[in-house]
């Protein structure tokens, strides 16, 4: 068993972070340049942390799989970034942002961490603005905000539908400044194939140069994972197709506990699968549900074009089932309802895995111009992908895997259970509980990277200043490199019949069917067997063409899929263990009479932190969640 000490500072909620900062140890500037830090991933958290640590004077080595740090998947975030600025004078403040997140996460997040991220949110907006991020502005020159994700205040800062891109390019620019200053060294086009632990502390990584195939050793006094989420385990997701869990998974196998792996947000409004070779599902902003009506035909066999189906033959199922909230029910409810209709055979489109999102009535009522003003760029993007003009006929949409609330367990300092190994941004589990609210992911990633990790990491590194640069020749590096090489050799030597992506697709289907929007004991147990069988088949029938000492994209895929096969198993195990429904985790056995999620606080008010146990079953460690400052309530949409 691991000792899960969250190290939450004493005192009132609003004083914890200040007290921590006052009491934590610092590193003398002259000592900082003797210390190396490895950082993996260059999204909002990774690039933010890299530049901040460089500014502090540490030597930072940054790794990413893309050809440039500017391409990390934070780039694709659309809606915005939250902060408790209260610029609209609508009563917002740090506590309210904190409370919305705790409640939105269905009371499965840690109070102290959530309060802290709300606390630093304003500083993030100040910093991005100073970096030249062009947030939307009012005519008077001040920053504009909008309401987002169903909260009652207007706290979301945005740059049209490209907020993630603009924030990421801001972070990339400050990273570049540190590269020029010589404090950050960038290693693009690298896959991280192992984490090296020496005497119980994270001391380095084994990376593969994706161009030359060379296996590299890199050492440091601390290792930070900013590797994002693992939503691509479903194959079809809103993530970049190369997003992967490999570095986080290696960390788990080296002793870092993995928390709440089954907490995955499925986003309801995505472009559905259109063809057999489709590689991803593109997100369409959920704001579309403000004016679009969701429906399927009442008759399963009704194959008429949508516009030819008269009103009396349409089933506006959200309006029917949720008369109060209608099309604006929360993400998880909307996703589950769409799946229910399609599974019952009412789905539309070529595959039957889609529902209509219809703007006919809104256009009739408000005029085409008004709709174009609000959603023009989204309609354009939808047309680019599908060829369908949504002013003339309904969009077809379907839910897709989007964001993983689960991740590596971290304490208040964002350190995993391996000393010297940190996880920030989506890669950790800490701030969103069982469900994330819109525009909170950018806030958390940037807050972790700029203003939390650069403070907390000093507390650890202050004890490392006497450790000279870590050599990469030790037994631990030897061993890690050897196992990495053996695994690559194994991939290349199987010479079976199926490419890695075909296994990935099948894994995604299993996860989607049994560990997706709805889970039950029978299905999850079946999925455990199916995943184990698929894993066996993978290791006996995989086909990787080419060689290791070369650019080999199939080899890259094979490694990622091999790790997903193991992670999927842990996700199912976690879902099976948590017999309650909470947030995005919906266990069919635990629902109210009218089909709403039913939390069981008496039994499951804890973080499930799984510990790797070799070939044996993983060990479940529980961090009890104590709510000292908020009262636990049932989430209700009535």
């Amino acid at each position, binding site marked *: 068993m691991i000792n899960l000490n969250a190290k939450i500072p004493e005192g009132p909620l609003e004083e914890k972070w200040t007290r921590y900062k006052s009491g934590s140890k610092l590193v003398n500037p002259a000592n900082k340049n003797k210390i190396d830090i490895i950082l993996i991933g260059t999204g909002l958290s990774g690039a933010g942390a890299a530049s901040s640590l460089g500014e502090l004077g540490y030597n930072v080595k940054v790794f990413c799989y893309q050809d440039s740090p500017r391409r990390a998947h934070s780039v694709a975030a659309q809606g915005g970034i939250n902060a408790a600025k209260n610029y609209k004078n609508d009563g917002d403040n740090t506590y309210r942002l904190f409370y919305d997140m705790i409640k939105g996460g269905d009371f499965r997040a840690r109070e102290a961490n959530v309060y802290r991220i709300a606390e630093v949110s304003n500083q993030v907006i100040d*910093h991005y603005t100073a970096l030249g991020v*062009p947030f939307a502005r009012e005519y008077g020159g001040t920053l504009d905000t909008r309401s987002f994700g169903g909260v009652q205040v207007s706290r979301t800062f945005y740059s049209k539908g490209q907020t993630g891109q603009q924030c990421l390019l801001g972070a990339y620019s400050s990273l*570049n400044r540190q590269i020029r200053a010589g404090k950050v060294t960038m290693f693009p086009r690298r896959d991280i194939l192992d984490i090296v632990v020496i005497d119980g502390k994270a001391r380095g990584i084994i990376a593969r140069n994706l161009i030359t195939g060379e296996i590299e050793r890199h050492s440091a006094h601390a290792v930070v994972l900013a590797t994002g989420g693992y939503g691509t385990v479903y194959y079809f997701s809103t993530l970049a197709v190369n997003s992967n869990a490999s570095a986080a998974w290696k960390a788990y196998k080296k002793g870092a506990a993995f928390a709440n792996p089954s907490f995955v947000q499925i986003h309801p409004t995505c472009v559905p699968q259109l063809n057999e070779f489709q590689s991803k599902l593109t997100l369409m902003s959920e704001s579309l549900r403000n004016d679009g009506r969701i429906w399927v035909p009442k008759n399963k066999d009704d194959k008429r074009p949508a516009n030819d189906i008269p009103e009396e033959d349409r089933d506006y199922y959200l309006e029917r089932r949720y008369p109060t909230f209608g099309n604006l029910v929360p993400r998880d409810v909307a996703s589950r309802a769409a799946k229910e209709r399609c599974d019952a055979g009412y789905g539309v489109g070529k595959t039957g895995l889609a529902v209509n999102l219809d703007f006919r009535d809104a256009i009739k009522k408000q005029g085409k111009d008004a709709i174009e003003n609000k959603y023009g760029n989204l309609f354009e993007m939808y047309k680019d992908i599908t060829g369908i003009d949504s002013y003339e006929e309904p969009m077809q949409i379907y839910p897709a895997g989007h964001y993983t609330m689960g991740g590596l367990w971290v304490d208040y300092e964002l350190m995993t259970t391996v000393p010297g190994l940190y996880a920030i941004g989506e890669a950790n589990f800490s701030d969103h509980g069982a469900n994330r609210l819109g525009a909170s992911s950018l806030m958390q990633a940037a807050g972790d990277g700029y203003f939390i990790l650069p403070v907390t990491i000093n507390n650890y590194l202050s004890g490392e200043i006497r450790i000279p640069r870590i050599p990469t020749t030790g037994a631990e590096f030897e061993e890690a490199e050897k196992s990495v090489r053996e695994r690559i050799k194994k991939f290349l030597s199987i010479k079976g019949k199926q490419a890695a992506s075909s296994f990935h697709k099948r894994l995604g289907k299993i996860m989607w069917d049994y560990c997706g929007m709805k889970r039950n004991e029978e299905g999850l147990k079946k999925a455990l067997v199916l995943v184990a069988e698929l894993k066996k088949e993978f290791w006996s029938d995989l086909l990787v063409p080419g060689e290791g000492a070369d650019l080999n994209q199939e080899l890259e895929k094979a490694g990622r899929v091999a790790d997903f096969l193991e992670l999927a198993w842990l996700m199912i195990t976690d879902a099976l263990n948590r017999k309650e429904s909470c947030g995005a985790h919906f266990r069919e056995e635990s629902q109210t009479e009218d089909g709403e999620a039913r939390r069981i606080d008496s039994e499951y008010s804890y973080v499930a932190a799984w510990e790797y146990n070799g070939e044996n079953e993983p060990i479940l460690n529980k961090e009890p969640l104590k709510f000292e400052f908020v009262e636990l309530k049932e989430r209700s949409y009535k």
Partner: protein
Amino acid sequence: MKLRLKIWRQKNAKTKGAFAFYDLDGVSPDMSFLEMLDSLNKKLIEEGKDPIAFDHDCREGICGSCGMFINGYPHGPVPGLTTCLLSMRYFKDGEKIVIEPWRAKPFPVIKDLIVDRSAFDKIQIAGGFISVTAGAASEANSILVRKKKSDEAFDSAICIGCGACVAACKNASAMLFVSAKISQFALLPQGRPEAKERVRAMIVEMDKQGFGTCSNTGACEAQCPKKIKLTNIARLNREYYSAF
């Protein structure tokens, strides 16, 4: 539909490349261009052949990873789209499609359709930033920016760094790329204090990387998937001449 593909194959930077021909059946008009290549690669892998290497990631037009020359146009014949968003319904059954990597000296081929665009990063490293240390920023609303200027800065800032402008240019000039970043910061008050040093450093680096000069042909603007405007280059020139 059925396609005849003529694709550039090159093992690595050191070897010489050549075109290869592939017949591909069963292409659905619903596929994106990259999904069409995925289906070709699946076929090649199953035949025991080396699949075609190409850069790609987000597949929704925002990361800037993908990019190839399709029938003589960067990102293909449809304006305003990246390769990943280019749908196969724009092509006809039986069509012959020629696919090449970006062709520019500062973008050497790494393998097949993958080129090395690190020259772009080097230009940004030279000066594409505002020097603010985390923690030093003032309250965001203490900097007022005229909305029109802010919107213009945004229009320049949406460059995805794909390299299509360089590939489209007969001189392999990177002026549109550089001018987009210069413009974003030139238009904002936050960018003014370092404006002179920035433009000088970025231009020096651009030349050092071997990009050609701009002769105002405008192919870059016509081919940019994000529709970055040529007026950015005029602003860059003005910024540059007033930086000495």
